[in-house]
């Protein structure tokens, strides 16, 4: 489904390695199966040719890796999908890495595929997946080969993609897309329309599954604290495992609050949650509220913009009005 091929990316990487622009490449490395790509650093042309891949399963957002990568010698090449480029800008806004040490190549993205949806559609025991045009040919252990329309198995975050526009790059491969008029707040609205009791029941059910593995936090490009408050015994709120249902709420509320106005809505948190908790619905609530209360704001759309929570106007909404406004049930 992707419009740019892995081959094109490999050639670009080889060119930049060869002409000395960069000395290594951050990319997706082939896995055991057709869908388990791992972010990896390629310094070697052979390795790049053999193991670099780009396909519908390359969801991982590389922006956060740049914090560690830019501390190394030399310049690194990074491929940025549109949503990654927003995180890239947000990290730059917060001075989290040195722009000079990165060569960013923007690439278009047609949306990534959620492997669990593929498994549901094609059955267990996936042996191979081949992308053909806009379809996936899935070979399984127990069933005949199936052709699945990519659109049917898009990751949730890609279904409601906010932008196909790369907002940060040194060079662009393919054509840049547009900011989309997405329906990403529909689910939030649905929740807002529920009664208080229904909402509580919904979130109780979702959050109670949390195992506090911290994957959502550790993958999040906005969560880049040197020391997270939840890991810091001195913070007074540190906790490791969920001992009481309060703790998972505390963790998710505070985490969402800490990234409020900084979250670019890349959707990595929900992608990685082993318990399938729709964490993006927390972040999106903040984004939606911010847009409605203080005017549209897209974190990472540009470098250096002032986040809504470190800003104000003298005639901002009162908290009581805000709660009313954000509560469709009672509005």
């Amino acid at each position, binding site marked *: 489904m992707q419009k740019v091929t892995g081959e094109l990316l490999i050639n670009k990487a080889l060119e930049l390695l060869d002409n000395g622009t960069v000395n290594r490449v951050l990319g997706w490395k082939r896995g055991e199966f057709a869908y388990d790509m791992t972010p990896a650093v390629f310094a070697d042309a052979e390795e790049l040719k053999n193991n670099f891949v780009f396909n519908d399963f390359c969801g991982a957002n590389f922006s956060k890796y740049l914090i560690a990568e830019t501390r190394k010698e030399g310049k690194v090449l990074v491929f940025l999908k549109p949503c990654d480029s927003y995180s890239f800008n947000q990290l730059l806004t917060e001075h989290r890495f040195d722009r000079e040490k990165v060569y960013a190549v923007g690439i278009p993205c047609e949306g990534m595929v959620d492997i669990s949806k593929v498994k549901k559609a094609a059955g267990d025991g996936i042996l191979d997946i081949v992308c053909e045009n806009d379809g996936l040919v899935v070979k399984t252990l127990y069933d005949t080969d199936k052709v699945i329309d990519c659109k049917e198995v898009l990751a949730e975050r890609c279904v409601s993609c906010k932008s196909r526009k790369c907002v940060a790059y040194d060079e662009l491969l393919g054509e840049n897309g547009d900011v989309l008029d997405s329906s990403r707040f529909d689910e939030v609205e649905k929740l807002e329309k529920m009664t208080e009791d229904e909402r*509580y029941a919904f*979130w109780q059910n979702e959050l109670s599954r949390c195992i506090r593995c911290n994957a959502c936090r550790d993958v999040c490009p906005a969560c880049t604290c040197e020391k997270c408050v939840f890991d810091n015994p001195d913070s007074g709120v540190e906790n490791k495992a969920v001992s009481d249902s309060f703790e998972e*709420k505390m963790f998710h509320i505070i985490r969402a609050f800490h990234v409020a106005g900084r979250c670019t809505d890349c959707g990595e948190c929900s992608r990685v949650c082993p318990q399938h908790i729709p964490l993006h619905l927390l972040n999106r*609530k*903040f984004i939606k509220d911010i847009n409605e*209360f203080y005017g549209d704001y897209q974190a990472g759309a540009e470098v250096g913009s002032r986040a809504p929570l470190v800003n*104000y106007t003298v005639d901002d909404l*009162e908290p009581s009005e805000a*709660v009313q406004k954000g509560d469709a049930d009672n509005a």
Partner: protein
Amino acid sequence: MQVKGEYKPLIVAFCCNWCSYAGADLAGNNRLNYPDNVKIIKVPCSCRVNPMFVLRAFQRGADGVILCGCHPGDCHYTSGNYYTRRRMALLFSMLNYLGIEKERTRVEWVSAAEGAKFAATMNEFTEAVAALGENKRLEDLRCKK
């Protein structure tokens, strides 16, 4: 004024040093009653109140949390309460989104001259929280008993 019945909700009130804490003092000077279950914590400015403190209070058994600060435009530090306003607008909206009763949280601007407003606010807030009953949705069972 006391709340009817046996159940007395616990209210934590964060008051800024310059306006609201002085407003609470004025309520005392004027002998204006408000429920004893309201306990005040002094902060330099309402903007010192971290959302974590609000959640902490609920965790430890508070039934309602109220923040009081200078009226917008009157902040001793010029802009602190503007940040408070944004932070709490978002936090409270989020709590409501999670199904936590919105009547349990409030921000009220109380100046040093508004002793009567302070007392009235506390009376009214306590009543509103009492009507909800105990905080069950944001409690930590380990802190109960």
